[in-house]
């Protein structure tokens, strides 16, 4: 501490900045061959590559790197992006979570405000056929989600609150649009 203070004051007196200290990184590095190939592959980013040949080169390099890493049993999951789950699985997870947490809720506002319900709405048009199929089978309260995604309200305003009539109207709409 004392030494640091002394050095800094000396540097101030001399008028030149202190030398940056080199910090050792203790991260285990990949073997040289793999690292080089990976660096080569990552340097050819999609933004830089315009021609078909260089894109092909990049893809091939990534593929080689993955094959080699798998062959040498290196954990590649850390560096490769995780594949997105199919939308159907994700929808069923969220829908089940929502049902488990709101089975005793009467307030429609509270049903809509649940985070899983909001996430289902954020999934957009892809989830509409799944919502309609679920509505057909389980009569769960998907009407606000369907209306918010599609910006449509196919049932008569006088039928609001009548679950059977609202379901029928939505299913008829889905069949007309060939979504189910």
């Amino acid at each position: 501490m004392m030494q640091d203070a002394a050095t800094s004051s000396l540097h101030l007196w001399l008028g030149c900045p202190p030398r940056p200290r080199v910090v050792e990184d203790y991260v285990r590095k990949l073997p040289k061959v793999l690292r080089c190939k990976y660096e080569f592959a990552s340097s050819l980013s999609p933004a830089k590559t315009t021609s078909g040949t260089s894109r092909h080169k990049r893809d091939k390099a990534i593929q080689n790197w993955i094959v080699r890493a798998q062959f040498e049993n290196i954990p590649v999951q850390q560096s490769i992006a995780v594949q997105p789950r199919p939308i159907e699985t994700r929808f069923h997870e969220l829908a089940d979570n929502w049902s488990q947490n709101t089975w005793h809720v009467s307030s429609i506002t509270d049903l809509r405000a649940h985070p899983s319900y909001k996430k289902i709405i954020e999934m957009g048009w892809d989830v509409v056929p799944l919502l309609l199929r679920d509505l057909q089978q389980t009569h769960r309260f998907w009407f606000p989600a369907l209306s918010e995604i599609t910006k449509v309200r196919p049932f008569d305003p006088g039928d609001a609150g009548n679950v059977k009539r609202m379901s029928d109207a939505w299913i008829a709409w889905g069949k007309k649009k060939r979504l189910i």
Partner: protein
Amino acid sequence: MRSLLLERTFRKLFAAGYEITSPQSTDYNCIAWAAHDIHHKWWPNDYGYWPGWVKREETIPSFIRAFRLLGYRECGDSCRQFGYEKVAVYAIGKAPKHMARQLLDGSWTSKLGDAEDITHYTLDAVESYGPAPFYGEYGAPVVYMRRLLVVSWVVRFIQFVWWKVR
């Protein structure tokens, strides 16, 4: 019949005593059940049924206005009174969450979301508080309303005819 799920959700239910009186149904909710309606989900927004001439807003006055149309008037307590039928509005802050209806023997009946109807012997049996943002919590009874049993029979007959016509 007991339900562990119900008892786990409503901590006072087992101690207060309760009975399950119907199968699960998604056709109606607690507000509809308090209004003797098993064909609609009542809620003052675009997706629920609400009496046409009452403004759709999620406030206690809006609930009071809707039930005044059914012949109810506000009263001071939840005690059983001969010749009257009572309802209680549960709320957290200013937001209504649940309703229960008094039966002739003085016990209360509630529909729990998409689950069963239950008869509970005290009003605080389904009282619940929890951490924000209060998902599914019913709060506590804040408003009591009553109507004469004769009025109740007349109104229920009119409701029955109205729904048959529709």
